[in-house]
């Protein structure tokens, strides 16, 4: 067994065990970062497979994403640090069944599917190949991703931020009138009532 094989088994073990521990810990922070550890191990496996870009990119992405996940989990979950022991698992039977099915499907695919035999030439620069692809056939996908991400950003701001262009949203954020003191621009005829109602509701 070469050190690469050994490293693969160790990393795969870390990925699986820490993935399992995610559901056995009580602390949201530990759960988030155990998941991060699992992803880091997967990223390292990808490095072993020669995916030098995707592996490192996975470290990068997951670090930020799991951190943000931890922020939100701590923010919104009761007992975020698990000071009182609790069960992190909901609907365990359904979840277990779904997990087994998904695993079987993926593993089956890996075993059964007929993968094309196209060995890349030694010394292929995978990052360069990826870049060429992004500027070639996949350009439309790439640019649509940009638009989709813009939609995400706008959605995020609309849904989460209390602040607004025309004042805090819970106080009936409302554009100013076209003339001083007049009705808001573009408001439906009941616009004044609507904002008044929002105000009332708040108090």
């Amino acid at each position, binding site marked *: 067994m070469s050190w690469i094989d050994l490293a693969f088994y160790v990393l795969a073990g870390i990925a699986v065990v820490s993935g399992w521990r995610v559901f056995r810990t009580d*602390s949201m*922070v530990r759960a988030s970062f155990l998941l*991060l550890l699992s992803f880091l191990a997967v990223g390292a496996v990808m490095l072993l497979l020669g995916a*030098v870009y995707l592996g490192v*990119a996975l*470290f990068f992405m997951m670090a930020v994403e799991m*951190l943000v996940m931890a922020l939100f989990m701590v923010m919104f979950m009761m007992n975020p640090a698990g000071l009182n022991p609790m069960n992190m698992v909901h609907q365990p039977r359904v979840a277990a069944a779904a997990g087994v099915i998904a695993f079987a499907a993926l593993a089956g695919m890996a075993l059964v599917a007929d993968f094309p035999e196209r060995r890349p030439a030694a010394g292929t620069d995978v990052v360069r190949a990826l870049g060429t692809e992004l500027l070639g056939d996949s350009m439309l996908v790439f640019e649509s991703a940009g638009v989709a991400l813009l939609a995400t950003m706008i959605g995020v701001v609309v849904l989460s931020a209390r602040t607004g262009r025309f004042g805090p949203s819970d106080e009936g954020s409302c554009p100013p009138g076209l003339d001083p003191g007049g009705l808001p621009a573009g408001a439906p005829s009941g616009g004044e009532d609507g904002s008044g109602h929002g105000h009332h509701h708040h108090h």
Partner: protein
Amino acid sequence: MNEVLLPTLVVLSTLLAGAALVAVLDQAVAGMIAGRPVRGLLSATFARGMLLWLRPDSTTEHPDALLWRLAPAAYLVLAALGLAVVPWSADFVPVRLPTGVVLWGAVEALATVVIFLEGWAPNAPLPLLGGYRHVAAGLSYILVSMFVLIGVALPAESLSFDAVIDSQQDLWNVVRQPLGLPLFLVVGLGIGVWGPLRFADAADLAGGTTAETSGPRRLAWALGRGAMLVAFSAVAASAFFGGWLGPWLPGPMWLLLKMLLVLVLLVVIGRLLARMAPERFVGLAWLLLLPLSFVDLLWAGLLALYG
């Protein structure tokens, strides 16, 4: 065996010696600003470290002991990973990774995680505030760093530091992309929890993440922080000052000199500028630094095509 041992020793000893040097530099600059230069700096710094090593640990009522133990060590690991991909000469690169620039980005992101954990683990109000504060900054400067580093990768046509240095044979990036270094220094201040971005262990939180830490554990955190600044200086030197390139002296000497320059810059900035309000920094990072890094990238792009 030497192929493995030598790079490891070089990286770790550079980090250790560099972290000590950062402490010495910092005390020297502090003494100058305070108007009374410190005598016997070297021995005073070592004595300070030794005192931390000898003093007992403290703990809190119900901390997350495991995370508290791991965070300082992980900080050091990240610094080591960052330094490992920086070339010392054309022949000697501890780890020749074709995506070294991306790895450094990952180090920045993971450092934010580690600093957050250091603040979370003690289960105490002041460290907790410090940890969360740092996350606000960490998630803001990371984009700036990505753009700036992509800017230096453009002319190199590669994501490895080898190529980035090689692309500076004629002209260093600090001249070619004048916005790059100032923007990247902000990232260095952040990742090393330093000066105006010293949010995590701020003075108004009585040391924030470190308010409950004493003894060797505190020493380990200081070591990780110093090591991270050293790793950052190596990356900055390679990305903007041509790394090991230079006449007369051997490559490694040039790299060390340039790292020293970056460290001095960071230390002086850290001692002269007040810590910003976290909210202000977030606004500044997204609304000023990020657009500036767009400009930097555009400039780098135009120069790479038509320069």
